[in-house]
């Protein structure tokens, strides 16, 4: 979706506020929000792609004014309601509905180490012939899907060169919407700064963008 989250190339967002000796979490609720999001994700009711998309669905003005973990919690609540892990009434009252069954946590203390250590690899060991080769000129397609995509607006229609083939990965545009993993090659594509931003950009500079094969066409 052409949301405000897709902000590469925008002006007017203000200065970068670097904080010295920044703590991992500024307040305890941020740590708890982080923990809750990961723990609830362990039920496998939604993918990381779906979670990212849920955050993108936060209205633009709210997206820009909410803090990072406020957005996580807002998205978590929506996903839990959608997948019937909780009801909206339960979230609003803070109390479990009368007679609702007692569940078992998906993430136990013993499960934390293995979850962190394994992660969730997104590559897939399926045969897929790459459509593009290293060094080949390609163009980012001008796609504007209303749903989730990882094709940033600032590269659409721009030409670059295949730098590297990273292998076969789950395709977020379908996976976020439960339309299958549709695994395909992901390439590192080099765009010159001049191609993206015009002649005034420094001649040597470039931006490398990781792109699923569906985002690309021969240039």
């Amino acid at each position: 979706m052409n949301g405000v989250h897709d902000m590469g190339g925008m002006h007017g967002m203000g200065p970068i506020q670097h904080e010295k000796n920044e703590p991992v979490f500024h307040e305890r609720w941020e740590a708890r929000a982080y923990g809750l999001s990961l723990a609830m994700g362990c039920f496998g009711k939604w993918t990381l792609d779906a979670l990212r998309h849920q955050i993108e669905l936060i209205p633009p003005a709210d997206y820009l004014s909410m803090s990072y973990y406020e957005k996580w919690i807002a998205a978590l609540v929506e996903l839990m309601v959608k997948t019937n892990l909780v009801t909206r009434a339960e979230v609003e009252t803070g109390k479990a509905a009368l007679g609702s069954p007692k569940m078992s946590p998906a993430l136990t203390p013993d499960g934390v180490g293995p979850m962190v250590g394994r992660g969730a690899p997104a590559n897939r060991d399926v045969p897929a012939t790459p459509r593009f080769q290293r060094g080949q000129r390609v163009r980012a397609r001008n796609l504007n899907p209303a749903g989730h995509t990882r094709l940033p607006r600032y590269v659409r229609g721009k030409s670059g060169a295949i730098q590297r083939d990273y292998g076969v990965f789950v395709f977020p545009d379908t996976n976020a919407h439960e339309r299958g993993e549709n695994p395909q090659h992901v390439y590192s594509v080099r765009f010159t700064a001049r191609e993206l931003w015009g002649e005034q950009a420094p001649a040597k500079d470039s931006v490398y963008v990781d792109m699923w094969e569906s985002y690309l066409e021969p240039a």
Partner: protein
Amino acid sequence: MTSHPSHAHEHAHQLVPSDPALRVKALESLLVEKGLVDRAALDALIDTYEHKIGPRNGARVVARAWTDPAYKQRLLTNADNAIAELGYGGMQGEHMVVVENTPKVHNLIVCTLCSCYPWAVLGLPPVWYKSAPYRSRSVLDPRGVLREFGLELADDVEVRVWDSTADVRYLVLPERPAGTDRLSEGELAALVTRDSMIGVAKVPAPVQERHR
């Protein structure tokens, strides 16, 4: 390094005072009551990212690469395996690529679409990395962004910005500072900053060395 406008940061937090704190507390209570969440699991997870997984991991990788040319070669060609040699990897570091800074090439990592970051070697990202100013301008004006961090690059240095749009997570291998020939791997690791591994800073030369 630019001085941090701490008042602005505090102000941002005051705009959303205790409300999210209360909401998250209520949500946690609900999820525990329903049996969906084990508080001890949250504690263990939070402890992991507050005390075990952070930029010291990445600093060890960098120091090893500076002192062991064969390791550096493995790191640049197969980062996953090389990082696993030091015992790191896993969540948000499943597919790692390391890019090397040299006197003529400067690499910078960003995620314009959200907040993708190599947790396995750097821990959780700082607020500025996830913020709109950094995400919006890093691809458009990386040299301007670096100037905000106090780093002025010469015109003949090539800037490469890596936008983490897919599942690959990037780590910058910064340049080893001059005057560090006699330092041990452990002493070198202590010099390596998080910011240098994102690419918004260089690794500062050790203070004692300057005085010799």
